[in-house]
């Protein structure tokens, strides 16, 4: 009797463990499939020519010549980098300043509330962010064609990036030991100088990581750009004109039904994933090294 319950309990334990391992396996199947499909399909079209050329025209039934598939994604790469760069230039200083406040001076009720609101902002769906910036430019624009522009795309990406930058800055500065601030105060160094010259560099690597993560998050966003930057076959022709970017173009080409465009969408997906993965890998390595350093000194 006793042995039987014990066996049953052991069997249950083993079953549950197998179920858990099954869950991990189930989650890794789509990941493997996505990475494999992207690598195989994307690998077929990717080349130097693909990365540096103007966009191809679609291969239709009436236009199934070999030349129609001749082209690349340079306008999308260019547009993505320009809009992400401008967005980072705005979001990084603003977000780092806000993060400094929340970490250094935000120990009161309003500071905690602000910190909470930043969390909530990161939960606002990206399509709503796009809708917001679209509405903003719809009100400001003189005529309807001016609603869509590289600039409005950048602003949408700023709103996506901000909560990431603020959160990582705040968290990394909170990790800086209190004693560092106290030592600075004991030497008579004013607070602002201590923060900028001592606290910020101590948490510096993590702040940079925050920037990288923000760019990685915004770089994969298609929805907000769909409503703001729109797309532009010609590439980047000024901040007041629509601009191409990789994520929305993957959507456009992937759903177009034209063979060469769908194939090129996979190529673009491979480029995008490689960029995203190397960004988050870099961020992870910086964080891991920093964790080791802090762990070693403590």
């Amino acid at each position, binding site marked *: 009797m006793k042995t039987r319950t014990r066996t049953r*309990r052991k069997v*249950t*334990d083993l079953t*549950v*463990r197998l*179920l*858990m*391992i099954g*869950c*991990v396996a189930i*989650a*890794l199947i*789509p*990941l493997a499939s*996505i990475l494999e499909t*992207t690598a195989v*399909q994307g690998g077929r079209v990717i080349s130097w020519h693909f990365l540096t050329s103007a966009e191809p025209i679609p291969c239709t039934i009436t236009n199934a010549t070999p030349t129609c598939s001749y082209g690349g994604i340079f306008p999308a790469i260019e547009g993505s980098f320009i809009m992400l760069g401008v967005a980072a230039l705005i979001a990084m200083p*603003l*977000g780092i*300043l*806000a993060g*400094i*406040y929340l970490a250094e*001076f935000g120990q009161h009720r309003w500071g905690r509330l*602000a910190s*909470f609101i*930043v969390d*909530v*902002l990161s*939960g*606002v*769906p*990206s*399509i*709503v*962010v796009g*809708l*917001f910036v*679209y*509405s903003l430019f719809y*009100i400001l624009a003189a005529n309807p064609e001016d609603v869509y522009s590289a600039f409005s795309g950048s602003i949408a990406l700023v*709103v996506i990036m901000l909560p990431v930058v603020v959160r990582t800055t705040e968290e990394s500065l909170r990790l800086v030991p209190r004693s560092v601030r106290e030592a600075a105060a004991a030497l008579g160094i004013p*607070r*602002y*100088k201590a923060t900028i010259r001592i606290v910020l560099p101590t948490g510096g690597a993590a702040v940079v990581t925050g920037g990288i993560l923000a760019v990685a998050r915004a770089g*994969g*966003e*298609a*929805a907000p750009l*769909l*409503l703001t930057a729109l797309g532009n076959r010609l590439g980047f022709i000024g901040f007041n004109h629509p601009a191409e970017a990789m994520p*929305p173009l*993957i*959507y456009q080409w*992937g*759903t177009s039904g034209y063979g060469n465009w*769908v194939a090129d969408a996979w190529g673009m997906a491979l480029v995008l*994933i490689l960029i*995203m*993965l190397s960004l988050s890998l870099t961020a992870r390595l910086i964080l891991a090294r920093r964790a080791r350093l802090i762990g070693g000194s403590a």
Partner: protein
Amino acid sequence: MTAPRGRVARSHRRRDRVLDNLFVVGTGAAVGVVVSFVAAISYLLVVQSLPTIRLFGYRYLFGVEWNAPASIFGAEPIIVGTLITSAIALLIGVPISLGIAMFLSEEAPGWLRTPLAALVELLAAVPSVVYGLWGLLVLVPIMQNQVNPDLAATLGRVPGIGPWFQLEPSGGTDLVTAGVILSVMVIPTISAISREAMSAVPRSQREAALAIGATRWETTRTAVLPYASSGIFGAIILGLGRALGETMAVTMTVGNHINGLPTSLLGQGQTIASAIANELNNTAYPLERTALIEAGLVLLLVTLLVNVVARLFVRRVFRGGETPS
């Protein structure tokens, strides 16, 4: 000699005090700008959707017809579509995520934890448009040829829920397909936060259970899960927030059928986010534009509520876990 030096020191101190105050005000202003985005988003969406709010009132939420030329806009189909796809996502995603979280927090050997957790987190690093592309070209054919007919042949025969599993000519782009993709996309969120909640459970809890002869699973069930339950709940709600607002992957797989309530889960549908992504740039009707912005407002309010609730739960856990006892 002493007097001027004292004056210099005093003026330095005064300058430092002024700069210190400026620093607090400056960084505080940056916080103000960031926080004001939430208010600005809400305000602008309300203002922009006023025409439809005035015209339809609450009937907008319950109307089932979306007919732009006739100026009739009812958002119930897209609201229902959003809820259905998110519900499917949680139904599939939550058990898998909790299994992963329990395995990584309680069962996995130390050397396996970090690489496995990193792999699961990779799911979050894949851009949603790539999920959509994969869904469209890999998952949709599988659903169309295999899963949907199987569902119709099994669940479709069960009385009560049967009508929801009738085959429709969806071409594989339907509510279930979108829900399945979403279930993959919520896994990294739910599993990572639940795992953190479980890892925050004090060691002594587990040791107490193990000491009285509990097996590993009994320890997890009786000592870890109850303790972490509120964090796990917060994690699930955060996953829900992600599923509700997800746009690209859903837009590419849900079929985008905006008119009328969905009659089967195997039929085409539309969510709030996919309706906005599909229609906003193409509409020629000013009223449809504001109707879509109002849909975005509904989505914003729901996700704000969901996020506030989730963060409250998640925070409570970690504050509780951090306090030294």
